[in-house]
């Protein structure tokens, strides 16, 4: 069985970007975590550009940023799975997610892949997902948005 097919994991880090794919990937991971009795860590990274200090309180003042993690927590509760929400401010999203996965000893990292419908439609793979795929210390699930 390949790494990606195996549902068994002990600790999964789920990267949330505040988009439509968040609820889908949290449901997916919570469902699997419930069976595997695994821990789930939801990470939302707020990218801080170089014009601001890294410790500027951007996330703390935003309801919307908090809501991303709170929604994930609510979904996990519905699945009766303990989800630990983590809010980070970082210069680079991909590096922050990988660092968090390393620090937490995660054996699974889950990211969502957004589908943009404009201009005929394409997957917005960006820089973050390739970085995670190359640097993650564990299995990575990339969960794409539905194309339709």
């Amino acid at each position, binding site marked *: 069985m390949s790494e990606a097919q195996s549902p068994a994991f002990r600790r999964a880090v789920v990267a949330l970007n505040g988009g439509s794919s968040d609820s889908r990937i949290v449901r997916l991971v919570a469902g699997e975590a419930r069976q595997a009795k695994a821990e789930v860590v939801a990470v939302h990274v707020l990218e801080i550009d170089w014009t601001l200090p890294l410790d500027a309180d951007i996330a703390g003042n935003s309801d*919307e940023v908090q809501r991303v993690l709170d929604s994930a927590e609510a979904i996990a509760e519905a699945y009766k799975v303990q989800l630990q929400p983590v809010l980070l401010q970082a210069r680079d999203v991909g590096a922050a997610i990988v660092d968090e996965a390393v620090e937490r000893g995660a054996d699974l990292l889950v990211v969502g892949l957004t589908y943009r419908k404009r201009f005929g439609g394409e997957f917005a793979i960006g820089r973050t997902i390739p970085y995670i795929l190359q640097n993650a210390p564990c299995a990575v699930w990339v969960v794409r948005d539905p194309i339709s």
Partner: protein
Amino acid sequence: MERPHSPYFRYTGPGQLTAKEATLAPKSGGGRALERIRRFLFGRRLASEEEVTERLPKKLALPIFSSDAISSSAYAPDEILIALFAGGAIALQYSVEIALAIAVMLAIVTTSYRQVCRAYPSGGGAYAVAKENLGQIFGLIAAGALMIDYVMTVAVSTTSAVAQAYSVWPVIYDWRIEIGIASIALITIGNLRGLRESGNIFALPTYLFLGLSLLLVGLGVARALTGQLPSPPVPPQVPLPGAEALTLFLLLRAFAGGSVALTGVEAIANGVPAFKPPEARNAANTMTIMAILLGILFVGFMFIADSMGLRPATAGGGPTAIAQLGTAIFGDGSPLFVALQVATALILFLAVNTSFNAFPRLAAILAGDGYMPRQFSFRGDRLAFSYGIVILAAVAGLLIVVFQGDTHLLIPLYSVGVFVCFTLSQVGMVRHWITSREPGRRWRAAVNAIGGLLTFVVLMVVVSVKFEGGAWLVVVLVPLLVALMLFIHRQYATSRRELALRPGQIITRPHREERVVVPINGVSRAVVQAINVGRSISDDVRAVLVSDDPNETAEVRAAWERAIPDVPLVVVESPYRALTGPLVAYLDVLDWAWPPDKDAPITFVVIPEYVPRHWWERMLYNQSTNQLRRALLGRPNTVITNVPYRREEPAMFEAASDDHSRGRPMPPPSPPSTTLPRP
């Protein structure tokens, strides 16, 4: 990043928070202990989204919704036999005819209620039907009657269930009240835990009772037809005052007593939305099956009882009619007999549970419509309407105690409410069909009109023959309940009108002046804290000392002028030693002295309050504070502010004092005069 809200709240939208269960966690040790007990008894708290709504197939809906009606066959035969027994053996020969008359009534009521199922697929309780078609007053009459009906179902079914038990084990007769109360307490706890009536487990007692009762009827009828029925076990009797003549009144009394068999027939019409689609047809068909089964059991029991010459137990502790039949057909002490009695007791408890579901729901609907206090519509920790459940249990328990756990004494209160509901529901349906444009509305209206007329006649019969036996209580209670509900509705309507904003009204910043009065009893940290709060509200702050001791007054004034020189102290001497009266009068005088050309100011009465650390300390402190608060509550233009002082705060206080002594700027002195203004 820190997420300080995270333990207690969840952001669910812009500017919108949802509280988590942690916000309800008790903070004191005693509170935590109580919480553990509460959790043990009632289970963990459920969130609103955890509510489960289910659709029932007919095979589950039949036992769940029919338990109330079918279980009536456990006590209705006794009522006919006891009434007829007063007329002697000749009167008892009419028991089958009376049972047949009741079965005909059952058929008519069922046919009428089938129409309700079709017309009100969202649930056609008597209240909803009467309110919509006959208006508010008739709706409330139906609601009052229904509430009495539910309370009586709990009381009667519980006492009857206990009677089934002491028919097998007579030794428990002396404990019947305690057992009844304990049973209600258990069912109450179960319902406060959110016990649902739709679980598979609830189908078992009904099917068990149906199976054993049908077996009993089958065997009994077969033996009666072949002449093999044994003679009945003769229950203990009390000497009768003398046989009554066989009159129409006696027969009507027996009919009225037996009409309790019809109670609970309406339950299916109330619960149409719980059926699987097509809801109305499934509910109507289930109702027909229920009526056929109830009719077979009821007439069958009476036929066997008549064939074997069964005598009712008129003395306390005697076996019920169904127990006597079970003894005769299955054999005394046989496993089938014991199983029959257990199943009868269980189905009766299931009927109790039906009321525990229906009463709080009706009370919640009435509360939603503004006819009952709002707390009846609040759901408890387990999503149950806790207030309704507790009230129902309390009233039913009281009835069991007052009527000494005797089913026969409770029955006269029972049927009146039921037939009021039947009649109003049927008359409401006639009105519904008249105004409707549905095909077949004429014959449907005719069916309901016949049902309404007959149930009204039965209602009159029941009221007249049972009036002295206790029906008068219901006749008095229903109008009282209606009056009470109308009063509550008027109160809510008035307060809503008074609190409403004018359409399009835009609220601007207030321009009224504010002043602060701090009642004090001396110079203390609690008082200083209250003064500081007062300073944050307005510059116009004054302390008021009401005292009956001139020496104490002088000491306080000296201490005050030393510690808080910038806040004026007004001393009100009270030679009659009262505290509240002089203070309120002082506030009145302040109001009278306000220039009449200016808007009246808002007076903040800032009350220093010492927070006790232990429950027993509450008796030692704040008694006069509470008295003052009560006296000021509702005073115009007055805001009462409590400033609690906790004993844990001295460190904070010291720090503040140090800051102060190191030269933090003091607020500007208050302008008002310390003398009492003249009115």
